[in-house]
């Protein structure tokens, strides 16, 4: 998918405007953990892609990556390096060997802290690659609400077109769905035209039922994406959590007609894992959700493993990390 195609797809797609909070719906959500885990465990065993199919799917994986750096030691230097990698994520000779020149391959977005938004926007000028800013008191989300809203506005003003916010976990743990709804709705408003990705921090929500309910409320409040984790929790993106969230996305589309995107983040490091996530999306939600318009993977080291696998696809020989340009 070319950058132009992607932009076309995203602009043609109606954003989820949100709906009034529906507490009956929230109350009716049931999640059976054991059954969810069984489905999640067998899904990667039921589907697989091999050879050129695997190569093609891995190219798609790359397009869905939100290439991320969220270090306390980030500097303009390493952010620029990351942006350079985002523009040219795979060695050109490999792209040739795979016959994939026409894709004009790039990642889904660059994801950084607010302080690095300006640097990233500058470095990506003309590429069409969006810059995403983590925001709203990331990663804990416990700053005063006005500050969190101002932070979003500042990142949007600095050029971020995607905003990854975190929710107040206490709202979920205490069943304060109205408070959660109001919070996310306020963030959405602060985003303006920027897309809102709502991080649920699923590793801190206690139960899968809470994950399901929080997913529904976030969508009702107008999230463009729902996202698993900050990458800073003890447990990040797992397939069972993903299954619960994407089933809520499906339910939301069935009930409202709006498509909400999905972003697992944290702990996704291998090409195989990224394929498992694509399989989950295709199986549970269908083809629109295996595009960067509706699916992103938040990751920093994933790309390197995919590059190795692509070299194997192109040459039949197992590769090494040092053969691929680092981000």
């Amino acid at each position: 998918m070319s950058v132009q195609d992607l932009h076309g797809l995203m602009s043609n797609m109606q954003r989820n405007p949100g709906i009034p909070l529906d507490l009956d719906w929230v109350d009716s959500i049931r999640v059976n953990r054991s059954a969810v885990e069984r489905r999640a465990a067998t899904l990667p065993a039921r589907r697989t892609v091999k050879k050129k199919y695997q190569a093609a799917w891995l190219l798609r994986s790359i397009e869905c990556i939100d290439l991320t750096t969220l270090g306390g030691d980030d500097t303009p230097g390493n952010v620029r390096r990351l942006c350079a990698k985002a523009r040219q994520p795979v060695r050109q000779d490999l792209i040739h060997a795979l016959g994939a020149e026409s894709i004009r391959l790039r990642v889904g977005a660059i994801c950084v802290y607010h302080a690095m938004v300006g640097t990233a926007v500058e470095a990506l000028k003309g590429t069409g690659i969006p810059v995403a800013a983590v925001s709203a008191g990331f990663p804990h989300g416990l700053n005063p609400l006005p500050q969190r809203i101002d932070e979003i506005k500042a990142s949007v003003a600095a050029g971020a077109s995607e905003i990854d916010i975190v929710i107040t976990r206490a709202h979920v743990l205490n069943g304060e769905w109205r408070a959660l709804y109001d919070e996310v709705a306020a963030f959405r408003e602060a985003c303006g035209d920027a897309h809102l990705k709502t991080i649920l921090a699923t590793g801190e929500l206690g139960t899968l039922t809470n994950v399901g309910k929080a997913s529904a409320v976030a969508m009702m409040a107008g999230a463009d994406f729902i996202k698993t984790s900050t990458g800073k929790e003890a447990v990040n993106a797992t397939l069972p959590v993903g299954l619960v969230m994407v089933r809520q996305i499906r339910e939301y589309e069935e009930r409202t007609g709006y498509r909400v995107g999905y972003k697992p983040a944290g702990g996704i490091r291998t090409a195989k894992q990224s394929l498992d996530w694509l399989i989950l999306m295709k199986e549970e939600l269908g083809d629109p959700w295996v595009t960067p318009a509706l699916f992103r993977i938040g990751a920093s080291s994933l790309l390197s493993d995919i590059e190795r696998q692509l070299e194997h696809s192109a040459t039949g020989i197992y590769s090494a990390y040092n053969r691929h340009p680092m981000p």
Partner: protein
Amino acid sequence: MSIIEIYEQMSWGPAPEGADLANEWLDRHDRKFGHYIDGTFVAPSEGVFFPTFHPASGKPLGEVAQGSDMDVSKAVLSAKVALKEWQAIGGYRRAQYLYAVARQIQKHARLFAVLETLDNGKPIRETRDLDIPLVVRHFYHHAGWAEAMESEMPGWEPIGVCGQIIPWNFPLLMLAWKIAPALAMGNTVVLKPAEYTPLSALLFAEICDRVGLPRGVVNIVTGDGETGRYLVEHPDVDKIAFTGSTEVGRLIRKATAGTGKGLSLELGGKSPFLIFEDSDLDSAVEGLVDAIWFNQGQVCCAGSRLLVQESVSERVFKKIRARMERLRIGDPLDKAIDIGAIVAPVQLERITALVEQGVREGAEIFQPSAPCPKDGWFYPPTLLTNVSPASTVAQVEIFGPVLVGMTFRTPKEAVEVANNTPYGLAASVWTENVNLAHDVAAKLKAGTVWVNCTNLFDAASGFGGYRESGFGREGGREGLYSYVRRTASNLPTPETSNWPEDDGPAPAIDRTHKLFIGGKQARPDSGYSLTIGTNEFGRGNRKDLRNAVEAARGAQAGWAANSSHGRAQVMYYFAENLQALGDEEAMHTVFSVAARCDKMDGACHSVPMRALCYAINEPIGVIGIVCSDGRPLSGLLELACGAISMGNTVVVIPSETDPLPAVELYRVLEASDVPAGVFNIVTGLRSELVSTLAEHMDVDAVWCLEPDWGVSVERLSVSNLKQTWVGSGRQPVETVLRHAVQVKNVWVPYGE
């Protein structure tokens, strides 16, 4: 397709599992296999072979031997000769062999999986991830039982030579379910694999050879139904274990009737899949995929009858249809295929015909849009709605990827519809309400109930049916009893009644001995009396039995719902009142039953997952009892009270030569708290009564302690494949109680 095209479409591609090594194995045998008898592969005595096919292509894989009666005889003889040594080496040595078998299968797991998929047509994912790992688990688990037999099963001994006949839907798994417990308990076996799927059993025979299993302990004779018949009819076979259709199960029941052979049957089903409104609907739909589209629906416990609560039925049906669109049907050797091929053309025809009939009867049919492969034998996943219990497709086992969907309004109605079938193999219940889950699980007539899950199996949990789905269990401690018998008991058997001799003058007042039905003394329908000695007794007939069974049926659910403590109280009080008859042995009999009423604990199996798997002893239902002539009072009481103590209700045909003690019980029963209908007695002639009782379709089991009538009882039990127990002499109370219950396993995965 180019990488770019695939990238744009994000389509699935082929992911073939290689079959080279399996083909090499077939070639090494020149694609022609003899039987495995007495430790060697031998050509069939009549030189006849028949082909076996790969269902996904319809092409032959090789030829296997057609077992003749001579082949079967040789195998049985070998098994018989092997018995002595196999038992003499002891549990520890047997455990080592079973352990070695488990190890070997594990080490060659993929070869087994591929071979199984080639022969059967089921997806490689299933053979690789489910069949073969479960086979291995079964042999490990039962290696443990072999080792533990001596201490864990005192008073039990092996039965002898076991003839085992298995189906084509889980060829190696069914072999494991049969062979592992049989060998563990010290039996030897002659196993006949299914005609369509003999190959994995032959590879298994090689494993037996490799681990040095003593000659004759395992014999594999291939062939068709005729071969199976030779095995069933062979006089030196001590026990038959069969898994397959209810139809063939009936034939086997008939053929073994009166031969003294042990029998366990695991037969068909039409298992319900209940979705309540408060369940995790998406997970329930996924469970349904595992229930009815696992192994193309060719599963005896397939969740083929979907029952959805009306309030969510439209949503659920919509979800199912959407899910069906994503099922992939195709080459079973592809790792990303959900539905493979149907095992044989005859099965495909049957499925097709039944679905057509369903549609003719008004069912709405849904099949996903993707076409089936042209080669081979395939049938698409199918959902039939607008179906009611009266529809043919809702009653008949289709044994294919065909789901019928119906609705219910209340939990009570759900249970009624679920139980509205002659079968009782398994059931699946989906609800997030723990109260509802256990309540419904308890009420379902099924040997296995899965709560918020489906088609879970483990060697530690006994699998088997209620009703016409068969009897006997496979797996767990309960499964071992299918392969052992009581060591000869030393209980003294009094030859005569210790009922006080009535040698005085005839009573001054004429007494009228009626029948005892529904808690009341009832005159016999015939209007005739029988004169025995100096007394006259009611001459019961088939209508009296009909009434008695009706009374027993009516009382059964309520009596079973009584607590075990409550039943114990009733039994104690009954024993107390028996003092009036002055028979100490009779009193003691009832006392000892009362003592055990609340002690038939179930078990919580250690299954390898985060789940409770609890085995509960449930009453069988209505039990007909044919008493012997000896010990007319105590003999009757030890059976009838054993039965009712576990929550069954009984219809008793007492001693024909001395019914007086039985009729004297009427007033004891009337004075006790035994509820009306629980204990029914019909006096009369066995020749006029036994066949009606044995045939009656609303009787769940018949016990016959009068040896002359055992053959008839077993033969006539085929009407509804009721359980039978044919014995003689005095029975220890533990034995009676074991016959009075059947095990239900309830699986409840947990975790929030």
